[in-house]
Protein backbone atom coordinates (compact mmCIF):
# COMPACT_ATOMS: atom_id res chain seq x y z
CA UNK A 1 0.00 0.00 0.00
CA UNK A 2 2.87 2.39 0.81
CA UNK A 3 4.26 1.73 -2.68
CA UNK A 4 1.01 2.76 -4.37
CA UNK A 5 0.62 5.77 -2.06
CA UNK A 6 4.14 6.91 -2.89
CA UNK A 7 3.69 6.69 -6.66
CA UNK A 8 0.29 8.41 -6.39
CA UNK A 9 1.83 11.15 -4.23
CA UNK A 10 4.76 11.50 -6.63
CA UNK A 11 2.39 11.90 -9.58
CA UNK A 12 0.40 14.52 -7.65
CA UNK A 13 3.59 16.35 -6.74
CA UNK A 14 4.67 16.27 -10.38
CA UNK A 15 1.72 18.34 -11.58
CA UNK A 16 1.43 20.36 -8.35
CA UNK A 17 4.99 21.64 -8.77
CA UNK A 18 4.03 23.08 -12.14
CA UNK A 19 0.42 23.89 -11.20
CA UNK A 20 0.56 27.18 -13.06
CA UNK A 21 0.86 25.23 -16.28
CA UNK A 22 -1.17 22.15 -15.34
CA UNK A 23 -4.13 23.68 -13.48
CA UNK A 24 -4.15 27.46 -13.89
CA UNK A 25 -3.57 27.47 -17.66
CA UNK A 26 -6.55 25.20 -18.52
CA UNK A 27 -8.78 27.21 -16.17
CA UNK A 28 -7.81 30.41 -18.01
CA UNK A 29 -8.36 28.72 -21.40
CA UNK A 30 -11.87 27.60 -20.36
CA UNK A 31 -12.69 31.08 -19.11
CA UNK A 32 -11.54 32.56 -22.43
CA UNK A 33 -13.90 30.19 -24.28
CA UNK A 34 -16.65 31.30 -21.95
CA UNK A 35 -15.90 34.97 -22.49
CA UNK A 36 -15.75 34.69 -26.30
CA UNK A 37 -18.88 32.53 -26.63
CA UNK A 38 -20.81 34.54 -24.06
CA UNK A 39 -20.21 37.81 -25.89
CA UNK A 40 -20.69 36.29 -29.37
CA UNK A 41 -23.91 34.47 -28.55
CA UNK A 42 -25.35 37.05 -26.21
CA UNK A 43 -29.11 36.75 -26.51
CA UNK A 44 -28.82 33.33 -28.22
CA UNK A 45 -31.93 31.16 -27.82
CA UNK A 46 -31.78 29.04 -24.66
CA UNK A 47 -30.80 25.41 -25.33
CA UNK A 48 -32.04 24.26 -21.95
CA UNK A 49 -35.22 26.12 -21.00
CA UNK A 50 -34.55 28.57 -18.20
CA UNK A 51 -30.75 28.27 -18.52
CA UNK A 52 -28.85 31.12 -20.21
CA UNK A 53 -26.49 29.94 -22.98
CA UNK A 54 -23.41 31.05 -21.07
CA UNK A 55 -24.46 28.97 -18.04
CA UNK A 56 -25.20 26.03 -20.38
CA UNK A 57 -21.58 26.25 -21.58
CA UNK A 58 -19.97 25.97 -18.13
CA UNK A 59 -20.52 22.22 -17.40
CA UNK A 60 -19.46 21.30 -20.94
CA UNK A 61 -16.29 23.36 -20.65
CA UNK A 62 -15.61 21.84 -17.23
CA UNK A 63 -15.98 18.29 -18.52
CA UNK A 64 -14.02 19.02 -21.70
CA UNK A 65 -11.18 20.42 -19.61
CA UNK A 66 -11.35 17.38 -17.31
CA UNK A 67 -11.17 15.07 -20.32
CA UNK A 68 -8.18 16.84 -21.83
CA UNK A 69 -6.27 17.30 -18.59
CA UNK A 70 -6.84 13.78 -17.28
CA UNK A 71 -5.51 12.45 -20.56
CA UNK A 72 -2.61 14.89 -20.64
CA UNK A 73 -1.54 14.08 -17.07
CA UNK A 74 -1.09 10.33 -17.30
CA UNK A 75 0.07 10.26 -20.92
CA UNK A 76 2.66 13.02 -20.68
CA UNK A 77 4.01 11.79 -17.35
CA UNK A 78 4.52 8.29 -18.74
CA UNK A 79 5.96 9.33 -22.09
CA UNK A 80 8.25 11.89 -20.48
CA UNK A 81 9.55 9.35 -17.95
CA UNK A 82 10.03 6.78 -20.67
CA UNK A 83 11.96 9.13 -22.93
CA UNK A 84 14.03 10.63 -20.09
CA UNK A 85 14.69 7.11 -18.80
CA UNK A 86 13.57 7.76 -15.23
CA UNK A 87 10.63 5.36 -15.56
CA UNK A 88 13.36 2.86 -14.73
CA UNK A 89 13.05 3.71 -11.02
CA UNK A 90 9.40 2.63 -11.02
CA UNK A 91 10.08 -0.44 -13.15
CA UNK A 92 12.83 -1.60 -10.75
CA UNK A 93 10.46 -1.38 -7.79
CA UNK A 94 8.13 -4.13 -6.54
CA UNK A 95 4.99 -2.14 -7.52
CA UNK A 96 2.33 -4.31 -9.18
CA UNK A 97 0.77 -3.40 -12.56
CA UNK A 98 -2.48 -2.55 -10.71
CA UNK A 99 -0.72 -0.18 -8.30
CA UNK A 100 1.09 1.41 -11.25
CA UNK A 101 -2.18 1.87 -13.15
CA UNK A 102 -4.18 3.18 -10.17
CA UNK A 103 -1.51 5.73 -9.20
CA UNK A 104 -1.32 7.22 -12.70
CA UNK A 105 -5.09 7.25 -13.20
CA UNK A 106 -5.70 8.55 -9.65
CA UNK A 107 -3.39 11.51 -10.15
CA UNK A 108 -5.00 12.23 -13.55
CA UNK A 109 -8.45 12.32 -11.88
CA UNK A 110 -7.23 14.67 -9.14
CA UNK A 111 -5.75 17.08 -11.71
CA UNK A 112 -8.98 16.95 -13.72
CA UNK A 113 -11.04 17.70 -10.60
CA UNK A 114 -8.73 20.58 -9.64
CA UNK A 115 -9.17 22.12 -13.10
CA UNK A 116 -12.97 21.61 -13.02
CA UNK A 117 -13.31 23.14 -9.56
CA UNK A 118 -11.14 26.07 -10.70
CA UNK A 119 -13.42 26.71 -13.69
CA UNK A 120 -16.58 26.37 -11.57
CA UNK A 121 -15.34 28.74 -8.87
CA UNK A 122 -14.22 31.33 -11.44
CA UNK A 123 -17.45 31.04 -13.48
CA UNK A 124 -19.61 31.32 -10.36
CA UNK A 125 -18.20 34.80 -9.80
CA UNK A 126 -20.43 36.10 -12.57
CA UNK A 127 -22.87 33.32 -13.55
CA UNK A 128 -25.41 31.45 -11.45
CA UNK A 129 -25.04 27.70 -12.05
CA UNK A 130 -27.31 25.39 -10.03
CA UNK A 131 -26.31 21.87 -8.97
CA UNK A 132 -29.42 19.66 -9.13
CA UNK A 133 -27.89 16.16 -8.89
CA UNK A 134 -24.51 16.20 -7.10
CA UNK A 135 -24.23 12.39 -7.08
CA UNK A 136 -24.54 12.20 -10.88
CA UNK A 137 -22.13 15.10 -11.13
CA UNK A 138 -19.51 13.26 -9.07
CA UNK A 139 -20.09 9.95 -10.85
CA UNK A 140 -19.68 11.45 -14.33
CA UNK A 141 -16.72 13.54 -13.18
CA UNK A 142 -14.90 10.58 -11.62
CA UNK A 143 -15.62 7.92 -14.25
CA UNK A 144 -15.16 10.38 -17.14
CA UNK A 145 -11.79 11.67 -16.01
CA UNK A 146 -10.83 8.14 -14.87
CA UNK A 147 -11.54 6.81 -18.37
CA UNK A 148 -9.41 9.52 -19.97
CA UNK A 149 -6.66 8.97 -17.38
CA UNK A 150 -6.68 5.28 -18.37
CA UNK A 151 -6.68 6.21 -22.07
CA UNK A 152 -3.68 8.43 -21.23
CA UNK A 153 -1.92 5.39 -19.74
CA UNK A 154 -2.52 3.50 -22.99
CA UNK A 155 -1.22 6.41 -25.08
CA UNK A 156 1.74 6.97 -22.75
CA UNK A 157 2.72 3.30 -22.87
CA UNK A 158 2.30 3.17 -26.64
CA UNK A 159 4.04 6.44 -27.59
CA UNK A 160 7.79 6.24 -27.99
CA UNK A 161 8.17 9.83 -29.12
CA UNK A 162 6.49 13.09 -28.18
CA UNK A 163 5.10 13.59 -31.69
CA UNK A 164 3.28 10.24 -31.45
CA UNK A 165 1.70 11.40 -28.21
CA UNK A 166 0.82 14.77 -29.74
CA UNK A 167 -0.78 12.89 -32.65
CA UNK A 168 -2.94 10.86 -30.25
CA UNK A 169 -3.94 14.04 -28.43
CA UNK A 170 -4.61 16.18 -31.51
CA UNK A 171 -6.27 13.59 -33.74
CA UNK A 172 -8.19 11.50 -31.20
CA UNK A 173 -8.82 13.25 -27.89
CA UNK A 174 -9.25 16.84 -29.13
CA UNK A 175 -11.76 16.11 -31.95
CA UNK A 176 -13.75 13.72 -29.76
CA UNK A 177 -13.92 16.25 -26.93
CA UNK A 178 -14.83 19.20 -29.21
CA UNK A 179 -17.49 17.19 -31.02
CA UNK A 180 -19.17 15.94 -27.88
CA UNK A 181 -21.78 18.62 -27.37
CA UNK A 182 -19.80 21.10 -25.31
CA UNK A 183 -21.12 24.05 -27.28
CA UNK A 184 -24.43 22.70 -28.53
CA UNK A 185 -27.20 20.26 -27.75
CA UNK A 186 -27.49 17.04 -29.74
CA UNK A 187 -31.00 18.09 -30.70
CA UNK A 188 -29.53 20.98 -32.68
CA UNK A 189 -27.69 18.60 -35.03
CA UNK A 190 -29.01 17.18 -38.35
CA UNK A 191 -30.20 13.56 -37.89
CA UNK A 192 -27.13 12.03 -39.59
CA UNK A 193 -24.60 13.85 -37.37
CA UNK A 194 -26.78 13.15 -34.34
CA UNK A 195 -26.43 9.42 -35.06
CA UNK A 196 -22.67 9.73 -35.65
CA UNK A 197 -22.29 11.65 -32.40
CA UNK A 198 -23.81 8.75 -30.48
CA UNK A 199 -20.70 6.70 -31.25
CA UNK A 200 -18.58 9.18 -29.31
CA UNK A 201 -18.26 8.01 -25.68
CA UNK A 202 -17.21 11.48 -24.58
CA UNK A 203 -20.64 12.81 -25.55
CA UNK A 204 -22.25 10.81 -22.72
CA UNK A 205 -19.75 12.22 -20.23
CA UNK A 206 -20.64 15.79 -21.12
CA UNK A 207 -24.37 15.18 -21.40
CA UNK A 208 -24.47 13.34 -18.08
CA UNK A 209 -22.25 15.86 -16.34
CA UNK A 210 -24.56 18.65 -17.54
CA UNK A 211 -27.53 16.67 -16.18
CA UNK A 212 -25.88 16.89 -12.75
CA UNK A 213 -26.15 20.68 -12.96
CA UNK A 214 -29.42 21.36 -14.75
CA UNK A 215 -31.43 18.15 -14.34
CA UNK A 216 -32.06 17.84 -18.10
CA UNK A 217 -30.16 15.89 -20.72
CA UNK A 218 -30.32 14.65 -24.32
CA UNK A 219 -29.76 11.02 -23.26
CA UNK A 220 -31.26 9.38 -20.16
CA UNK A 221 -28.62 9.92 -17.41
CA UNK A 222 -28.53 6.27 -16.31
CA UNK A 223 -27.95 5.19 -19.91
CA UNK A 224 -25.13 7.73 -20.20
CA UNK A 225 -23.65 6.62 -16.88
CA UNK A 226 -23.71 2.96 -17.95
CA UNK A 227 -21.91 3.86 -21.18
CA UNK A 228 -19.32 5.99 -19.36
CA UNK A 229 -18.68 3.28 -16.73
CA UNK A 230 -18.47 0.67 -19.51
CA UNK A 231 -15.99 2.82 -21.43
CA UNK A 232 -13.96 3.34 -18.24
CA UNK A 233 -13.90 -0.43 -17.61
CA UNK A 234 -12.91 -1.21 -21.20
CA UNK A 235 -10.00 1.25 -21.44
CA UNK A 236 -8.88 0.28 -17.91
CA UNK A 237 -8.73 -3.39 -18.89
CA UNK A 238 -6.71 -2.58 -22.00
CA UNK A 239 -4.35 -0.29 -20.02
CA UNK A 240 -3.90 -2.92 -17.28
CA UNK A 241 -3.21 -5.63 -19.83
CA UNK A 242 -0.53 -3.48 -21.50
CA UNK A 243 1.11 -2.53 -18.19
CA UNK A 244 0.89 -6.14 -16.98
CA UNK A 245 2.59 -7.41 -20.14
CA UNK A 246 5.18 -4.66 -19.93
CA UNK A 247 4.30 -3.64 -23.49
CA UNK A 248 6.92 -1.07 -24.59
CA UNK A 249 7.90 -0.72 -20.93
CA UNK A 250 9.87 -3.84 -20.09
CA UNK A 251 11.73 -4.52 -23.30
Amino acid sequence: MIGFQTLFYKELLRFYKVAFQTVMAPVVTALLYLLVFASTFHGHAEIVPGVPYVAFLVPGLMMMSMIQNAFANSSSSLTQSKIAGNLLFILLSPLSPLEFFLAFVGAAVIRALAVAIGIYVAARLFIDIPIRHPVFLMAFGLFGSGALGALGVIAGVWAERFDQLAGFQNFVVMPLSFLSGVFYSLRALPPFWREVSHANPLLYMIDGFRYGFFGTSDVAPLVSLSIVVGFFAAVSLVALALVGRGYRLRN
Partner: protein
Amino acid sequence: MTTPFPPPAISIQGIDKHFGRVHALRGIDLEVRAGEFFGLLGPNGAGKSTLISVLAGLARADSGHAAICGHDVVSAYRQARRALGVVPQEIVFDPFFTVREVLAIQAGYFGLKGAENKAWREELLTTLMLADKGDANMRALSGGMKRRVLIAQALVHKPQVVILDEPTAGVDVELRASLWTFVRRLHAEGHTIVLTTHYLEEAEALCDRIAIMMDGQIAALDSKDALLRRAMHRTLSVTTAEPIVDIPAALVSKVRTHTENRLEFSLQRGTDSIPEILEALRAAGYVVTDIATEQANLEEVFLELTHKAK
Protein backbone atom coordinates in the same frame (compact mmCIF):
# COMPACT_ATOMS: atom_id res chain seq x y z
CA MET B 1 12.88 -28.92 4.15
CA THR B 2 15.29 -26.15 5.02
CA THR B 3 18.76 -25.94 3.65
CA PRO B 4 21.72 -24.88 5.79
CA PHE B 5 23.10 -22.86 2.85
CA PRO B 6 21.59 -19.59 1.70
CA PRO B 7 20.18 -19.68 -1.85
CA PRO B 8 22.47 -18.29 -4.53
CA ALA B 9 22.37 -14.52 -4.79
CA ILE B 10 21.68 -14.90 -8.50
CA SER B 11 20.66 -18.02 -10.32
CA ILE B 12 20.23 -18.04 -14.10
CA GLN B 13 19.14 -21.11 -16.01
CA GLY B 14 18.87 -21.34 -19.78
CA ILE B 15 18.03 -17.68 -20.37
CA ASP B 16 17.40 -16.91 -24.02
CA LYS B 17 16.48 -13.53 -25.42
CA HIS B 18 15.94 -12.16 -28.91
CA PHE B 19 15.50 -8.56 -30.01
CA GLY B 20 13.95 -9.01 -33.42
CA ARG B 21 16.57 -10.94 -35.39
CA VAL B 22 19.33 -10.30 -32.86
CA HIS B 23 19.95 -13.27 -30.59
CA ALA B 24 21.06 -11.25 -27.55
CA LEU B 25 21.30 -14.06 -24.96
CA ARG B 26 21.95 -17.67 -25.97
CA GLY B 27 21.02 -20.06 -23.20
CA ILE B 28 22.87 -18.41 -20.32
CA ASP B 29 23.50 -20.50 -17.19
CA LEU B 30 25.13 -18.72 -14.31
CA GLU B 31 25.16 -18.76 -10.53
CA VAL B 32 26.50 -16.03 -8.27
CA ARG B 33 26.93 -17.13 -4.66
CA ALA B 34 25.73 -15.05 -1.74
CA GLY B 35 28.43 -12.65 -0.57
CA GLU B 36 30.53 -12.82 -3.74
CA PHE B 37 32.14 -9.89 -5.50
CA PHE B 38 31.43 -10.97 -9.05
CA GLY B 39 32.64 -9.44 -12.30
CA LEU B 40 30.63 -9.61 -15.50
CA LEU B 41 32.85 -8.60 -18.38
CA GLY B 42 32.62 -8.62 -22.12
CA PRO B 43 32.94 -6.39 -25.16
CA ASN B 44 30.17 -4.00 -26.16
CA GLY B 45 27.13 -5.84 -27.41
CA ALA B 46 28.06 -9.08 -25.63
CA GLY B 47 24.74 -9.10 -23.77
CA LYS B 48 25.79 -7.95 -20.28
CA SER B 49 23.21 -5.17 -19.98
CA THR B 50 20.49 -7.38 -21.45
CA LEU B 51 21.25 -10.04 -18.85
CA ILE B 52 21.06 -7.41 -16.10
CA SER B 53 17.75 -6.17 -17.54
CA VAL B 54 16.34 -9.70 -17.36
CA LEU B 55 17.44 -10.01 -13.71
CA ALA B 56 15.94 -6.62 -12.84
CA GLY B 57 12.66 -7.31 -14.63
CA LEU B 58 13.33 -4.56 -17.20
CA ALA B 59 13.22 -7.10 -20.01
CA ARG B 60 11.48 -10.44 -20.27
CA ALA B 61 13.44 -13.50 -21.33
CA ASP B 62 12.05 -15.60 -24.19
CA SER B 63 12.81 -18.73 -22.18
CA GLY B 64 14.66 -19.87 -19.09
CA HIS B 65 14.51 -18.85 -15.45
CA ALA B 66 16.29 -16.33 -13.29
CA ALA B 67 16.07 -15.81 -9.54
CA ILE B 68 17.43 -13.33 -7.02
CA CYS B 69 18.09 -14.88 -3.58
CA GLY B 70 15.83 -17.78 -4.58
CA HIS B 71 12.94 -15.56 -5.76
CA ASP B 72 11.97 -16.00 -9.40
CA VAL B 73 12.20 -12.64 -11.20
CA VAL B 74 8.85 -13.21 -12.95
CA SER B 75 6.62 -15.27 -10.65
CA ALA B 76 7.95 -13.74 -7.38
CA TYR B 77 8.96 -10.37 -8.81
CA ARG B 78 8.12 -8.42 -5.66
CA GLN B 79 10.54 -10.39 -3.45
CA ALA B 80 13.14 -10.57 -6.23
CA ARG B 81 13.10 -6.79 -6.74
CA ARG B 82 13.25 -6.14 -2.98
CA ALA B 83 16.45 -8.19 -2.87
CA LEU B 84 18.05 -6.36 -5.79
CA GLY B 85 19.53 -2.89 -6.27
CA VAL B 86 20.63 -1.83 -9.75
CA VAL B 87 22.87 1.11 -10.56
CA PRO B 88 22.14 1.74 -14.23
CA GLN B 89 24.73 2.52 -16.85
CA GLU B 90 23.03 5.66 -18.15
CA ILE B 91 22.63 8.73 -15.99
CA VAL B 92 18.88 9.17 -15.66
CA PHE B 93 17.01 11.42 -13.25
CA ASP B 94 13.62 12.93 -12.56
CA PRO B 95 13.90 16.69 -13.10
CA PHE B 96 10.90 17.52 -10.94
CA PHE B 97 12.43 16.60 -7.57
CA THR B 98 15.21 17.31 -5.10
CA VAL B 99 17.76 14.68 -4.07
CA ARG B 100 16.00 14.02 -0.72
CA GLU B 101 12.61 13.76 -2.45
CA VAL B 102 14.02 11.32 -5.00
CA LEU B 103 15.38 9.06 -2.26
CA ALA B 104 12.20 9.26 -0.15
CA ILE B 105 10.09 8.42 -3.21
CA GLN B 106 12.33 5.50 -4.17
CA ALA B 107 12.15 4.12 -0.61
CA GLY B 108 8.37 4.53 -0.70
CA TYR B 109 8.11 2.39 -3.85
CA PHE B 110 9.66 -0.39 -1.79
CA GLY B 111 7.12 0.16 1.00
CA LEU B 112 9.66 1.89 3.26
CA LYS B 113 9.11 5.04 5.24
CA GLY B 114 9.59 6.16 8.81
CA ALA B 115 12.52 7.22 10.95
CA GLU B 116 14.71 4.16 10.41
CA ASN B 117 14.70 4.44 6.63
CA LYS B 118 15.08 8.21 6.83
CA ALA B 119 18.22 7.75 8.95
CA TRP B 120 19.58 5.28 6.36
CA ARG B 121 18.86 7.73 3.53
CA GLU B 122 20.72 10.47 5.39
CA GLU B 123 23.61 8.08 5.97
CA LEU B 124 23.72 7.34 2.26
CA LEU B 125 23.79 11.06 1.48
CA THR B 126 26.68 11.57 3.90
CA THR B 127 28.65 8.52 2.71
CA LEU B 128 28.23 9.50 -0.92
CA MET B 129 29.21 13.11 -0.15
CA LEU B 130 25.81 14.47 -1.12
CA ALA B 131 24.64 15.79 2.26
CA ASP B 132 24.96 19.44 1.24
CA LYS B 133 23.09 18.77 -2.01
CA GLY B 134 20.12 17.03 -0.39
CA ASP B 135 17.72 19.88 -1.06
CA ALA B 136 19.04 20.73 -4.52
CA ASN B 137 16.97 19.88 -7.57
CA MET B 138 18.33 16.97 -9.58
CA ARG B 139 18.81 19.27 -12.58
CA ALA B 140 21.30 21.37 -10.62
CA LEU B 141 23.73 18.49 -9.97
CA SER B 142 26.88 17.68 -11.90
CA GLY B 143 27.19 14.37 -13.77
CA GLY B 144 29.27 12.83 -10.98
CA MET B 145 26.75 13.86 -8.34
CA LYS B 146 23.86 12.48 -10.38
CA ARG B 147 25.71 9.18 -10.59
CA ARG B 148 26.11 9.13 -6.81
CA VAL B 149 22.38 9.75 -6.44
CA LEU B 150 21.78 6.74 -8.71
CA ILE B 151 23.89 4.66 -6.34
CA ALA B 152 21.95 5.95 -3.32
CA GLN B 153 18.67 5.16 -5.10
CA ALA B 154 19.82 1.60 -5.74
CA LEU B 155 20.68 1.13 -2.06
CA VAL B 156 17.76 2.91 -0.46
CA HIS B 157 16.02 -0.41 0.34
CA LYS B 158 19.21 -2.13 1.54
CA PRO B 159 19.16 -4.87 -1.11
CA GLN B 160 21.13 -8.07 -0.53
CA VAL B 161 22.37 -8.04 -4.13
CA VAL B 162 23.75 -4.93 -5.79
CA ILE B 163 24.41 -4.79 -9.53
CA LEU B 164 26.59 -1.96 -10.79
CA ASP B 165 26.42 -1.63 -14.57
CA GLU B 166 29.58 0.24 -15.59
CA PRO B 167 29.30 2.69 -12.71
CA THR B 168 32.62 4.41 -13.40
CA ALA B 169 32.21 5.12 -17.10
CA GLY B 170 33.15 8.77 -17.56
CA VAL B 171 33.79 9.30 -13.85
CA ASP B 172 36.85 11.21 -12.63
CA VAL B 173 39.68 9.45 -10.80
CA GLU B 174 38.84 10.80 -7.34
CA LEU B 175 35.19 9.82 -7.51
CA ARG B 176 36.11 6.41 -8.87
CA ALA B 177 38.41 5.78 -5.90
CA SER B 178 35.79 6.87 -3.36
CA LEU B 179 33.18 4.79 -5.15
CA TRP B 180 35.28 1.64 -4.87
CA THR B 181 35.96 2.28 -1.20
CA PHE B 182 32.21 2.46 -0.69
CA VAL B 183 31.48 -0.65 -2.75
CA ARG B 184 34.17 -2.58 -0.86
CA ARG B 185 32.48 -1.55 2.37
CA LEU B 186 29.12 -2.80 1.09
CA HIS B 187 30.75 -6.09 0.18
CA ALA B 188 32.39 -6.33 3.61
CA GLU B 189 28.96 -5.77 5.20
CA GLY B 190 27.67 -8.87 3.40
CA HIS B 191 26.14 -7.53 0.19
CA THR B 192 26.65 -9.54 -2.96
CA ILE B 193 28.17 -7.27 -5.60
CA VAL B 194 27.97 -7.80 -9.34
CA LEU B 195 30.07 -5.41 -11.37
CA THR B 196 30.28 -4.82 -15.08
CA THR B 197 33.06 -2.54 -16.19
CA HIS B 198 35.20 -1.68 -19.15
CA TYR B 199 38.13 -0.98 -16.84
CA LEU B 200 39.56 -4.46 -16.49
CA GLU B 201 42.05 -3.41 -13.84
CA GLU B 202 39.02 -2.55 -11.65
CA ALA B 203 37.57 -6.03 -12.06
CA GLU B 204 41.02 -7.51 -11.39
CA ALA B 205 41.41 -5.49 -8.21
CA LEU B 206 37.92 -6.08 -6.85
CA CYS B 207 36.29 -9.29 -8.06
CA ASP B 208 36.61 -12.81 -6.62
CA ARG B 209 35.08 -14.50 -9.62
CA ILE B 210 34.58 -13.35 -13.16
CA ALA B 211 32.39 -14.30 -16.11
CA ILE B 212 33.37 -13.12 -19.56
CA MET B 213 30.47 -12.82 -21.97
CA MET B 214 30.83 -13.02 -25.72
CA ASP B 215 28.09 -12.86 -28.29
CA GLY B 216 25.29 -13.64 -25.82
CA GLN B 217 27.12 -16.54 -24.17
CA ILE B 218 29.39 -17.09 -21.19
CA ALA B 219 32.81 -17.55 -22.80
CA ALA B 220 34.68 -18.02 -19.51
CA LEU B 221 33.64 -18.36 -15.90
CA ASP B 222 36.22 -18.87 -13.20
CA SER B 223 37.92 -17.39 -10.17
CA LYS B 224 40.04 -14.39 -11.00
CA ASP B 225 43.25 -16.29 -10.21
CA ALA B 226 42.30 -19.26 -12.37
CA LEU B 227 41.44 -16.92 -15.23
CA LEU B 228 44.80 -15.20 -14.92
CA ARG B 229 46.52 -18.59 -15.00
CA ARG B 230 44.83 -19.22 -18.32
CA ALA B 231 46.94 -16.55 -19.94
CA MET B 232 49.12 -18.12 -22.60
CA HIS B 233 51.94 -15.64 -22.20
CA ARG B 234 54.01 -14.02 -19.51
CA THR B 235 56.91 -11.63 -19.74
CA LEU B 236 60.53 -12.12 -18.65
CA SER B 237 62.93 -9.16 -18.55
CA VAL B 238 66.67 -9.87 -18.32
CA THR B 239 69.42 -7.29 -17.74
CA THR B 240 73.05 -8.20 -18.44
CA ALA B 241 76.34 -6.60 -17.35
CA GLU B 242 77.46 -5.96 -20.95
CA PRO B 243 75.41 -4.80 -23.94
CA ILE B 244 73.92 -7.74 -25.81
CA VAL B 245 75.32 -7.91 -29.33
CA ASP B 246 74.35 -11.37 -30.54
CA ILE B 247 71.14 -12.83 -29.28
CA PRO B 248 71.49 -16.63 -29.05
CA ALA B 249 69.67 -18.16 -32.05
CA ALA B 250 67.44 -20.33 -29.87
CA LEU B 251 66.05 -17.25 -28.14
CA VAL B 252 65.46 -14.91 -31.10
CA SER B 253 61.86 -15.95 -31.69
CA LYS B 254 60.95 -15.25 -28.06
CA VAL B 255 62.37 -11.71 -27.89
CA ARG B 256 59.79 -8.97 -27.70
CA THR B 257 62.11 -5.95 -27.23
CA HIS B 258 65.86 -5.39 -27.15
CA THR B 259 67.58 -2.29 -25.79
CA GLU B 260 71.37 -2.44 -25.24
CA ASN B 261 71.80 -4.70 -22.22
CA ARG B 262 68.15 -5.49 -21.65
CA LEU B 263 66.00 -8.15 -23.31
CA GLU B 264 62.29 -8.68 -22.86
CA PHE B 265 60.97 -12.16 -23.69
CA SER B 266 57.41 -13.23 -24.27
CA LEU B 267 57.13 -16.73 -22.87
CA GLN B 268 54.63 -19.38 -23.81
CA ARG B 269 53.06 -20.89 -20.72
CA GLY B 270 54.00 -24.56 -20.29
CA THR B 271 56.65 -24.80 -23.03
CA ASP B 272 59.21 -22.05 -22.31
CA SER B 273 61.47 -22.41 -19.35
CA ILE B 274 63.16 -19.49 -17.57
CA PRO B 275 66.25 -21.56 -16.45
CA GLU B 276 66.83 -22.62 -20.07
CA ILE B 277 66.77 -19.01 -21.27
CA LEU B 278 69.17 -17.92 -18.55
CA GLU B 279 71.44 -20.86 -19.35
CA ALA B 280 71.47 -19.94 -23.08
CA LEU B 281 72.50 -16.37 -22.23
CA ARG B 282 75.22 -17.56 -19.83
CA ALA B 283 76.53 -19.98 -22.48
CA ALA B 284 76.78 -17.04 -24.93
CA GLY B 285 79.03 -15.26 -22.41
CA TYR B 286 76.59 -12.81 -20.85
CA VAL B 287 76.44 -12.17 -17.11
CA VAL B 288 72.86 -11.75 -15.98
CA THR B 289 72.60 -8.99 -13.36
CA ASP B 290 68.82 -8.75 -12.96
CA ILE B 291 65.68 -10.62 -13.95
CA ALA B 292 62.00 -9.74 -13.58
CA THR B 293 58.87 -11.64 -14.53
CA GLU B 294 55.46 -10.18 -15.09
CA GLN B 295 52.27 -12.24 -14.94
CA ALA B 296 49.58 -11.65 -17.50
CA ASN B 297 46.82 -9.32 -16.39
CA LEU B 298 43.12 -9.66 -16.92
CA GLU B 299 43.25 -7.46 -19.97
CA GLU B 300 45.55 -9.93 -21.74
CA VAL B 301 43.31 -12.85 -20.78
CA PHE B 302 40.31 -10.91 -21.98
CA LEU B 303 41.94 -10.01 -25.30
CA GLU B 304 43.15 -13.56 -25.85
CA LEU B 305 39.66 -14.92 -25.24
CA THR B 306 37.92 -12.37 -27.40
CA HIS B 307 40.44 -12.72 -30.24
CA LYS B 308 40.19 -16.49 -30.11
CA ALA B 309 36.45 -16.18 -30.46
CA LYS B 310 36.86 -14.06 -33.56
